[in-house]
């Protein structure tokens, strides 16, 4: 399945803020340029945008978890 990797190391968040729902849920359509999560790196929040289109399957990294550069953050289905 196609995946969306993290461009940077940091802390991954699946929601825009603690009070909101996740950026994407299973079955949601994902267009190129859609934000699927945030990576906090050195106190800066970077929006993770999909470079591929598809249907959202699941997050591969946990919310608020440390991630490394290149680590998969989410999977898309067809």
């Amino acid at each position, binding site marked *: 399945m196609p995946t969306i990797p993290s461009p*940077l*190391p*940091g*802390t991954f968040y699946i929601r825009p803020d603690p009070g909101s729902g996740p950026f994407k849920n299973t079955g949601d359509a994902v267009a190129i340029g859609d934000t699927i999560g945030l990576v906090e*790196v*050195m*106190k*800066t929040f*970077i929006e993770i945008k999909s470079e591929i289109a598809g249907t959202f399957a699941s997050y591969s990294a946990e919310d*608020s978890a*440390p991630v490394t550069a290149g680590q998969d953050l989410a999977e898309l289905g067809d």
Partner: protein
Amino acid sequence: MAINRLLIANRGEIAVRIIRAAKALGITTIQVFSEADKDMLAVRLADEAICIGAPHARDSYLNIDKVIAAAVKKSADAVHPGYGFLAESADFARAVIKVGMTFVGPSADTIQQMGDKVSARAIARAAGVPIVPGSVGRIDSVDDAARVAAEIGYPVMIKAAAGGGGRGIRIAQNEDDLRAMAPQAKAEAEAAFGDGGLYLERSIRAPRHIEVQIMGDGTDAVHFFERECSLQRRRQKVWEEAGATCLDEATRQHLCQTAVALAEAVQYCGAGTVEYLYDEASKDFYFIEMNTRIQVEHPVSEMTTGIDLVQEMLCIAGGQPLSVAQSDISKTGHAIEVRINAEDPHMQFMPFPGVVTGLIVPSGKGVRFDHFLYPGYAIPPFYDSLIGKLIVHGQDRQDAIARLVHALEALQIDGLKTTIPLHLALTRDPDVLAGNFHTQWLEPWLDAGNLTKGEVP
């Protein structure tokens, strides 16, 4: 009671700096670290080290219970909070005292009084320190805000009472702005600080940021002259100088004396900085806030006065009186510090954590590099982007800038993007060379593409 076992409740370059000062005084050092920081330089340099939790600061360096548990487990008798993290948490200072240890800094009550910007203004006013015209206390309603703003004159800044470090500030140009912004500011302050208290200040156009380094022993206080810190991006200082060449001697004396008066008014104990806005046209200065800790840019004051401020604060925390009287403190020459951040200045200052593959540090008379790097060190992505501070001392400002250029050209940090190109471009700018800038200068300069223009191809 003299300190024997010091826990360093911080990380990065300031942890290294504190260890160096403590070792010079014969104090045993105990370094805390998160799971992401086990390889950091301070852990290698300290006599002992203890892991306090997961990488994210809320699970380690910002977690009072974990830091206190580590201090107890390691039988520390004192805790140095550094800057940032818990350095200005009155709750942390109280927790340290509660377990019978010394907090290297002022009392929890002083931290609290100065941390609340409304009460700090009131204390400054009572001590005879000029304050920015603004509300006397907290503003309770939008109508109150509009009435006060009409008195002090637009534009006005809406600030959070619990804020600081430039956070939570809005500028209203007129009453319509104010009525729209005040409720947002209140909601934001409640969310960010758990306290929706607001106050208003007149917005001073294009001021300089000038601050005074002070030190107190609970009875007496002295100053170590002023610093000029107007070159800022997103309200973060980028380049700092000691002293401020824009001041005439009478204004400098008055400014420094008000800082001492404020410190003595609160029986200040430890290192602190009183921050002011300076209006160059009218030569008026106004108190903005007092930071109750050692600051990032303290080395420039050390260079010009020859006094080790971190050692001094450790001695005072250990029960000694100030080692110097005001008449013993003199300054020579001019010092400049530039902050080296792991950021790409050509990509909107995008953070750039990574592995330091090579490191060449400039040395020589009047050059100092405070940092926590070594070849092979992987800078973790979880914390601030500050990786080092390059400090130079010259016989005057021009000489200091010349030394800075040489030091910046000699400094090599391979494997990362850093803000070295920004500083080199600044050293070539005519306004910077002439000392003509203010707090609103750097961002438009960057927006105008001067970073690339100033670079030698």
